[in-house]
């Protein structure tokens, strides 16, 4: 029988608030995401349209450069809501590629390595764990969506010979709001689907499928029931409509069905809730190996 000396010193010092601990997890996740050369390569690729857009803004605001390429007028290189809509659409779909690559790295490794018991045996909740991963993914996607878009806005504001920024502030807010909604949705979707698929490559495919397959189902739904509401399953069209309205870009005049913004918001909220439910079911410390 042991003789108890009772001289063990328990830590009783100060501790940081729970929010600060989530940032530790976010840092882990961010490092994990960016430790891959493919992530860096994708990031560079995702910035190519941004560089192209910088060039367009330069040309639009520089008469000499414009004259050198043929002297087209400023109307053909208009830097307006439509221009930013195109930029935002391009960056947002590239963000889908990035999310499909990064999200599985953040979750599937932990699941395959049975990491959750060790991580969740710290004073951090399941919500904190997911939120840390979410922050890492959201930050990574921010680097290729609203941040470069805002840089373009700032560049145009600086380069434009006329006062431009104040009269177009709605474009800046639209860029931020549209991108934040999209990458928040992508982050939750990516994490939820990754938590159910242990193979990283498969998870990447499933994320793409989750965005595009419902569009096909929606088209069938619309054709069979002779309705336009099947478009609510079409994420690309739904998001394009939303971005268009947020940026104040002109609506298409071809008589196509205009989805109500409320319906889009409800669909995105429902999909996000389903994703949160999936995460809630999957992210548990329970070990499947009993012994």
């Amino acid at each position, binding site marked *: 029988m042991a003789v108890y000396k009772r001289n063990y*010193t328990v*830590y009783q*010092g100060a501790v*940081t608030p729970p929010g600060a601990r989530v940032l530790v997890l976010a840092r882990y996740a961010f490092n994990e995401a960016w430790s891959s050369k493919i992530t860096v390569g994708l990031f560079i690729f995702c910035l190519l349209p941004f560089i192209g857009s910088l060039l367009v803004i330069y040309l639009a605001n520089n008469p000499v450069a414009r004259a050198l390429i043929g002297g087209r007028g400023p109307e053909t290189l208009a830097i307006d809501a439509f221009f930013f809509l195109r930029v935002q659409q391009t960056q947002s779909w590239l963000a889908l590629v990035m999310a499909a690559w990064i999200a599985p790295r953040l979750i599937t490794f932990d699941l395959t390595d049975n*990491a959750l*018991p060790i991580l969740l*045996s710290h*004073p951090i909740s399941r919500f904190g764990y997911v939120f840390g991963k979410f922050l890492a993914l959201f930050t990574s996607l921010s680097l290729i969506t609203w941040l470069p878009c805002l840089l373009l806005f700032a560049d145009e504001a600086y380069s434009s010979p006329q006062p431009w920024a104040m009269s177009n502030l709605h474009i800046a807010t639209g860029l931020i709001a549209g991108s934040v909604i999209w990458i928040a949705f992508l982050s939750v979707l990516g994490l939820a689907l990754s938590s159910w698929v242990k193979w990283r490559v498969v998870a990447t495919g499933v994320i793409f499928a989750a965005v595009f397959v419902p569009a096909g189902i929606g088209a069938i739904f619309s054709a069979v029931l002779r309705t336009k509401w099947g478009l609510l399953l079409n994420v690309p069209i739904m998001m394009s409509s939303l971005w268009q309205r947020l940026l104040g870009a002109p609506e298409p005049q071809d008589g196509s069905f205009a989805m109500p913004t409320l319906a889009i918001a409800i669909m995105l909220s429902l999909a996000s809730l389903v994703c949160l439910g999936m995460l809630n079911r999957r992210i548990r410390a329970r070990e499947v190996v009993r012994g």
Partner: protein
Amino acid sequence: MNDRIIFEDVSKFYGEVLGVNRISLSIPPGITTLVGPNGSGKTTIMNLMTGLVQPSNGRITVLGLRPTDAELFSIVGYCTQFDFFPRGITGWQFVFDSLMLHGMEEAMAIDLAAEAIERVQLGEAASRKIAGYSKGMRQKIRLAQSIAHRPRVLVLDEPLNGLDPMARAESIELFEELGRQGMHVLISSHILDEVDRISDRVILITGGYLIAEGNIHQVRQEVHEKPMQVLIRCDHPELLAAKMFSINHCVEARLHADGKGVFLRTADIDQFYSMLNAIAAEGLVKIDAVAPADDDANAIYQYLIGTEGGPS
């Protein structure tokens, strides 16, 4: 604060699969070992204790805290059997980041990480990437991570797996030291010889049910259907065996292979020792040594769970 880990009629079901059923325990400070075959519910008990899973029925308190209390995670250190490490980090970073997750300030985390790494004697290797560690070093860094925040309760799932004899001895020494200092050290292990040497008490479980609990020697004495076996080293084992057989409680005698001792089984160990003293006092047999031959975790395991040797 209560100084016990208490399970009151605790059951855990994973859907229709039984984890553990109606377990009641009261574990005081010191070293407690969970023994049972694979799938018996050892890890479930550890997960329940560390708040990682919630019981389906019953009540658990760890030093007065319920598993749902956030404070629980600060007083418990858990070393799982799974070989998980964030990829690409060093041993030192692993311990440091764990401390940051426990909410330590950076300066304090640096001090505590250094202390824990020194305690498991990982030394210079802590600055190397874990990916290059041997299995034993990985086990050590996991142990360092679990003790670094100075918990009151240390839960170790198969902590001796993969360790070489030297590292195993060092780890056992550390567990003994922590147990002596008044920490709750709960170990699941299948290395029963070592368990036997360091444990203050054992908990035997199989199929999710508690089979026995308590001090190893006390548990052995409670196994009435298996008379205790004692090895007596002496100069005339045959004579001693004949004398002892005259006692009703002595049920079996077997000569030791070297002819210089005899294994005797008795149903009443107290009377057995009294009679042995009397025979020694007569001077007919010179007794050199007396030692219980099946008063250990391995024998208890074999008698109660019915498998030869320890669990795999």
